[in-house]
């Protein structure tokens, strides 16, 4: 127990110093502050790297200022890895984070396994603002997740190496891209089946059947020679993209924007078939003992002003209707696009999970 206390106080001091928030004061002031911070604190998971850094710098301090609840942010790995950790920890009655940002495929898997705490909409009046499609529910209709942010996976390129911005996902199949692409390595986070279906098969309906999916995979197999890197870890591709080592690929629009803002020759393009639109939801682990504070946090994050702040500072697209935000046209265009997005077939990834992962592995490994 002592160790845990030490861990928390040290971390909250570090986090506080980084964020310049009230926690730093509490930490520096000494023990009473630390004890209070422990009483009203939340462990919140956000994707490590640029994403979490932006939250630490711009979002969590605002939350602490408004509510007095301090935040211990946890760098969580992208996608399913975090889900597995949460699930294993929940079996042992532990919660590595009280609230986490969970992508849609993981939300569905977590719901099927029942690892999310049920949320009470009455305690979160602001979630009225969130568009209904971004509210996750259990089969019995109870709420288990609330849309946090949405993001796009787009076609990115290094502007030093590739002079002309690509305009279509078809670019990935062009012979002169041999050895130049970096693509996500997993079927459930690359969403390349959806991209291929939309680009070459007139829509995602072909993904209804196994036969159709195999046709799409055959088409995907044609671009394998162009792929230099199948990446699991964002950092792996980010570095190669910035240096021009691997000058094109699929990547997160928001992070690409942050890299470009730092002066790297990176550009993100919405292809004419649309960017891939995925979203993250706030969900609370059933093992968390801080459900009340979690409600306060999710309510806070669902305010249109905070959604606006997220778009400006983190580069994500809002989960509330655009009209409710104060984003200018230019600001909205930088985080989203008028082009109709490709929305992944989450149902397919859920229902055919094992078959898909097997076929996908065979596709890229062989």
């Amino acid at each position: 127990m002592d160790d845990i206390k030490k861990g928390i106080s040290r971390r909250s001091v570090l986090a506080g110093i980084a964020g310049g928030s009230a926690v730093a004061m509490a930490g520096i002031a000494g023990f009473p502050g630390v004890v209070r911070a422990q009483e009203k604190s939340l462990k919140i998971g956000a994707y490590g790297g640029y994403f979490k850094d932006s939250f630490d710098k711009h979002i969590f301090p605002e939350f602490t200022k408004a509510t007095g609840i301090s935040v211990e942010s946890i760098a969580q790995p992208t996608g399913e890895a975090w889900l597995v950790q949460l699930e294993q920890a929940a079996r042992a009655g532990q919660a590595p984070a009280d609230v986490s940002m969970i992508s849609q495929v993981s939300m569905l898997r977590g719901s099927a396994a029942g690892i999310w705490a049920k949320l009470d909409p009455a305690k979160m009046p602001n979630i009225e603002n969130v568009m209904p499609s971004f509210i996750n529910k259990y089969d019995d209709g109870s709420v288990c997740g609330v849309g946090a942010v949405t993001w796009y996976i787009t076609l990115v390129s290094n502007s030093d190496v590739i002079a002309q911005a690509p305009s279509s996902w078809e670019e990935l199949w062009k012979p002169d891209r041999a050895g130049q692409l970096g693509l996500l390595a997993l079927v459930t986070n690359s969403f390349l089946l959806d991209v291929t279906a939309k680009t070459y098969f007139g829509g995602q309906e072909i993904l209804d059947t196994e036969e159709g999916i195999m046709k799409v995979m055959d088409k995907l197999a044609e671009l394998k020679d162009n792929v230099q890197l199948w990446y699991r870890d964002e950092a792996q591709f980010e570095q190669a993209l910035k240096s021009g080592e691997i000058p094109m690929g699929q990547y997160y629009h928001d992070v690409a924007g942050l890299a470009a803002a730092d002066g790297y020759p990176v550009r993100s393009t919405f292809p004419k078939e649309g960017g891939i639109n995925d979203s993250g939801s706030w969900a609370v682990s059933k093992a968390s003992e801080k459900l009340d504070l979690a409600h306060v946090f999710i309510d806070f994050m669902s305010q249109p002003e905070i959604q606006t702040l997220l778009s400006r500072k983190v580069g994500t697209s809002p989960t509330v209707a655009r009209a409710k935000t104060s984003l200018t046209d230019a600001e909205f265009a930088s985080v989203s696009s008028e082009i109709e997005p490709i929305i992944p077939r989450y149902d397919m990834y859920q229902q055919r999970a094992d078959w898909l992962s097997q076929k996908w592995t065979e596709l890229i490994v062989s």
Partner: protein
Amino acid sequence: MKIKPRTFSDYASIGFPAGMLMVFFVIPFGIMIAVSFFQRVQGAFYEPAFVFDNYARFLTSFFGGILGFSIGLAALVAVVSVLLAFPFTYILTRMARRTQVVWLVFLLSVLSLSEVLIGFGWSTLLSRTAGISNLLVAVGILDKPMSLSPSFGAVMTGMVYQTFPYTVLVLFPALSRLDPSLVEVARTLGSGPVRSFLNVVVPALRNSIVSTLIMVFVFALGCYLLPQLLGKPSHWTLSVLITDQAIYQSNMPFAAAMAVFLVLVSLSLVAISLLYGKKENAA
């Protein structure tokens, strides 16, 4: 002279290591075996059961090929590491004490690097934009810089880099204990340095070499980050696929089944080589 343990208290001294082995190896491994028979719930996680589905899924030519590649890669890494490390360690043991300490500290510090650092380091060193091929261009060997990673060579380089210090440290005690008079005799009888090394030193330490090969092989077999960071998908080892299943597909039972299979295969390979070694000794 050997003293045989007689009473219970004679065995007490191994109680602690035995307990640690139990808690940190036997029990987790038992849990893993249990999980490997659990029922996978598609689209969610798993539930306790006793089914063979997970093993059945593994027994295909696809996974057979990957298992074969993984074992071949680990064996090749072990052989290359020992080929490089054995002469190196031999020369090292002949050097002044001070030099030895400096080298050993250096090797230990290489050993302390994480797989992630080694992987990213080599992927930069082998890259087209910042890598060593630029040096080759400057010297005039290459026309233009090229990307050397991901490739099989990159995986091998990274893995041998990782196992080399380990290999040296395992070989060091045996080589430093080697009676120098053996070599002196060979030299007196007219062998050159290379010949006496090959004909006297290597055979004298045959057992150490075999056991080192096995240790490095097992060490390399568990490597999953380097093939992923430095290799193309066709160079991904079974360990990479186990990680994919466990971490990304949340399919613990299948991951456990593959891991059990991998452990059994490597244990039996080790057993075979030990048996072979015993026979050789007896002969």
